[in-house]
């Protein structure tokens, strides 16, 4: 930005901290996220896993404990006790570079402990009367076998006598409640507050935690498999298979994978991964400006989230009644035209009413894949107006697995509706097309500009603030560097993929091997709760399987569970 200054604001006072005030009159302006560009080129040059930041090195080994995510907690409790828990009531995960599943980052704090205890006792209070009614138990002795089974499933493995005694003791303890129902509530609260429940344990068969590679014990393999596919703990059959040693064998795991995939709960695993892949951790719909949410029904946030999940189900499993077979491919999620919903979706997409169980009719503007879904856009846009650079950054980080450095301090602003004779995009590019800004903006700009017509909740707008038609064309720069250890760090220049409009860009993304291999990388992290290391053959095998199958979900899961590393843990210094 120092060699020339295409935007010439009037003179203004420089702050002590080096930030300039923007030109007067910029009542409606969009932040131009100029970036230093240092990181973008460096990442390309060595062809390394660019989104494995320095701190990721610290999270490249198996922690041995993986705190349940909100969705895993809710699904597990539902399967164990038939109680529905709002995932948003569960303590939230810590996000590390766009990932919510990196185990080493998930510490359970004082407030978390308190919240888990309160939630566990609430669940217990709801489950206890039903358990007593169904079992017709009137004393603790009658409940013991029921609780032993619950303990085994909740703690995902064999239960030692001392543990069994510990959790059965409150059934006869007056302090734990005046009635059997209250004491049962206490027991359930205790189970759901235990580190044995709140963490998935992945421990070695030899029982040691020394540095190196170790074979996992059977229950750990069962949990890794069931949480990958169901987002929930292993059922009795899977635990029994673990006891028999069947899961140590790749064929045995694949047999059980098939069984788990045939269960309706398999949709949870796919939804969980897609949330992770697209970095959609929270519902951001209600955070948008009043002008954006005006006119939407009060339950729009819930409807849009449900619609997002239905699209995943429909694409990967065939959820609708339309009779069309599902593609079963992750990449189709990036170009599906089948969207579902009610009033909010119809309003935002500009469609007519839907027939029950059928996708919505075509609406206004281009609409292709989940990246144009209102729920996904809400997670990656500002409160109002256009958000080309946040979206471009999201595309590069989540779909292309590259790191974009944060914006620098001195950011000029460009008005979205300032009538200067240039389009909004032209004015943005006049600022970002110079070095060093262009180092990164060459990459995040084009995919971001393809989303210019969409407002923060995905409404299509025909023209920019000055009335000019949108220019959504550009060139995608797709890194195609293979792993370093195979190619000695030689730099392969990025592939240039030109596109004419939004739909061509989205199609190019869906077709790109880079996107597919990035999805594989993120799936690896989802399965293992850590970053991959270059030498791991399973990560590469997964990438190959995803690319060759063009993102087939079932093929990807098969590649994951059949890899030798799936039954191992890697403990680093």
């Amino acid at each position: 930005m120092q060699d020339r200054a295409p935007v010439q604001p009037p003179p203004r006072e420089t702050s002590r901290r080096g930030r300039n005030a923007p030109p007067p009159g910029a009542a409606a302006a969009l932040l131009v996220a100029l970036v230093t560009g240092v990181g973008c080129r460096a990442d390309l040059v060595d062809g390394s896993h660019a989104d494995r930041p320095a701190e990721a090195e610290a999270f490249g080994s198996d922690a041995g404990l993986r705190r349940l995510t909100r969705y895993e907690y809710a699904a597990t409790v539902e399967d164990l006790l038939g109680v529905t828990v709002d995932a948003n009531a569960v303590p939230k995960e810590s996000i590390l570079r766009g990932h919510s599943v990196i185990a080493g980052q998930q510490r359970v704090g004082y407030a978390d402990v308190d919240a888990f205890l309160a939630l566990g006792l609430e669940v217990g209070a709801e489950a206890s009367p039903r358990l007593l009614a169904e079992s017709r138990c009137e004393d603790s002795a009658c409940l013991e076998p029921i609780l032993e089974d619950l303990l085994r499933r909740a703690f995902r493995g064999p239960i030692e006598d001392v543990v069994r005694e510990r959790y059965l003791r409150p059934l006869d303890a007056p302090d734990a409640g005046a009635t059997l129902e209250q004491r049962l509530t206490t027991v359930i609260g205790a189970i759901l507050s235990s580190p044995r429940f709140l963490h998935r344990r992945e421990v070695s068969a030899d029982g040691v935690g020394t540095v190196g590679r170790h074979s996992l014990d059977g229950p750990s393999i069962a949990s890794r498999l069931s949480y990958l596919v169901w987002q929930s703990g292993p059922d009795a059959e899977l635990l029994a298979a673990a006891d028999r040693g069947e899961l140590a064998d790749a064929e045995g795991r694949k047999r059980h994978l098939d069984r788990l995939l045939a269960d309706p709960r398999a949709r949870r695993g796919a939804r969980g991964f897609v949330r992770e892949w697209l970095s959609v951790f929270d519902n951001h719909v209600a955070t948008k400006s009043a002008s954006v949410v005006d006119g939407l029904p009060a339950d729009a946030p819930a409807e849009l989230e449900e619609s997002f999940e239905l699209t995943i189900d429909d694409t990967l499993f065939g959820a609708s009644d339309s009779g069309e077979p599902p593609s079963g491919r992750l990449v189709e999620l990036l170009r599906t035209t089948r969207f579902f919903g009610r009033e909010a979706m119809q309003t935002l997409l500009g469609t007519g009413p839907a027939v029950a169980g059928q996708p919505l009719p075509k609406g206004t503007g281009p609409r292709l894949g989940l990246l144009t879904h209102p729920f996904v856009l809400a997670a990656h846009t500002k409160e109002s107006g256009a958000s080309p650079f946040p979206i471009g950054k999201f595309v590069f980080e989540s779909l292309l697995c590259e790191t974009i450095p944060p914006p620098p301090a001195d950011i000029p602003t460009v008005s979205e509706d300032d009538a200067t004779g240039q389009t909004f995009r032209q004015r943005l590019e006049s600022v970002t097309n110079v070095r060093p800004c262009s180092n990164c903006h060459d990459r995040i700009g084009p995919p971001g500009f393809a989303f210019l017509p969409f407002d923060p909740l995905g409404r299509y707008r025909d023209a920019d603030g000055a009335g000019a038609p949108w220019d959504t064309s550009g060139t995608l720069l797709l890194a195609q560097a293979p792993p370093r250890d195979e190619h000695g760090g030689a730099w392969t220049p990025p592939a240039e993929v030109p596109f004419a409009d939004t739909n061509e860009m989205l199609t190019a993304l869906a077709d790109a091997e880079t996107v597919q291999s990035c999805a594989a990388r993120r799936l690896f992290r989802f399965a293992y709760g850590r970053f991959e290391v270059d030498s791991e053959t399973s990560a590469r095998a997964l990438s190959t399987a995803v690319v060759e199958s063009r993102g087939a979900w079932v093929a990807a899961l098969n590649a994951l569970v059949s890899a030798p590393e799936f039954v191992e843990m890697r403990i680093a210094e």
Partner: protein
Amino acid sequence: MTPSKLVAALSRGNYSFSRRRLLQQAGLWSVLWPLLRFERAKAQADLAPRRVLIFFSPNGPIMERGPASGSETKFTLGEFWKPLERHQADGLFFTGMHQAGVPFGEHNEYGHQSAGTGALTARTTEGTNHATGPSLDQFIGQELQRAGIVTPQRSLLWGLHGLTGHWGPWYEAAGKAVNPVANPYSALAGLLPNIAPSNGPRVDPALLRRSAALEAALADCPELRGSLGREGKELLDYHCGNLASLQTSVTEAIARPRAPTCERPSSGPDTILPEDAPFHHAENVDETMRAFRKLIPLALACDVTRVIGFSFGDTAARFGIPSSYGVPSSAQVDSGDSGPQHHAWTHVYEETADKHQALRAFTNWYSEQVALVIDELKATPDVGGGTLFDSTVILWTSELGHHPGNPLEPHPNNHVPVLLFGKGQGTISTGRLYDGAGEEDSALTLHQLFVSLARYVGLPNVDSFGNAGTGPLDWLDG
């Protein structure tokens, strides 16, 4: 084993104790408690427990330099802070303060990032996208328990927002954010088991159930440790240390008698809002605050905790107040937001009457809420014959401040308004103004202020807080 020794033992990874033993000790503690309390009370000349209440407000006043102007003892409050005039004689007003912990005159981080994470932690993010240490409220709560000053809740954190994003002000530890409880019904539900009714069982059965559940969960800890590597052990120890800390608090709640000035409420929180209301919604915040204004003195009078944090908004909050206050609506600004909310108005780069009106309205509203809480504390009797206000020190700081050379700068780490209320059982000389003049040293003054608060509440050995070791602020005692 006293609670402090218990925590120390647990922090060494020694989780092997039985609940029976714990309760026996708690029982002993319960017998000893009145004696110890008597002795301590005598030693402190019958003074009530010392407490700290910390308010945080989002964004900044931007167009005003600080809360007051004048000399140290003759000063007037700025119009943004006028609602606090009735408590002026009981306050200390700091102007020209640079954010503690944030490098002076450097812009190495995005404005909200350093301001939000630094305001109460007095540290930078060091490139981690998070605070690198605990916020003052959490620090005090943790240290009090370590020092053996145990309350049924280590600390309480309430506010007008729930989840916090990156760069929030409240941290339990480096990288570990804490979220305020925004629902007053939930806040009250968390208090009630710790407040024995005057005509019922001395110990709430819910507390005993919590204790029983925690006992089982905690006993799992040592059994899980052996098979883990270093990273797993660290995760487990962090988790189990917090389980032990909570168990310590619950045990204390079971053991202690009800404070004589404490009355367990027989109905819900003082609000007409239903339990599932959007409490943080602009039109609801007055009603929500009405409830919290009663909950704060309740928690302190019943000695449920000695430290409360209260958050008016998250970092860069799109905070709004009811339309009856007449806040004008901002057009869309460069951050993408708009409307009658605080953050949008800080990003308006014109010095307009509307902007001034909006920023004044927000700071007036925060000021009025702090003033009303002080009213409540002054009206609530405390043990020893005084009121809660006599023993409670109230700190209010803001995410951002003002840039004297550029009143349109939305992210100034300088001239952050800081206000302190309460004579602190006679340890603080109030009714004065401190002018840090925007100089680098003013950040060190804030470090010292934080140290003084920690010392006031019962941690005499604390010598530093945040990323600077500074000692206390001697200026407080006049």
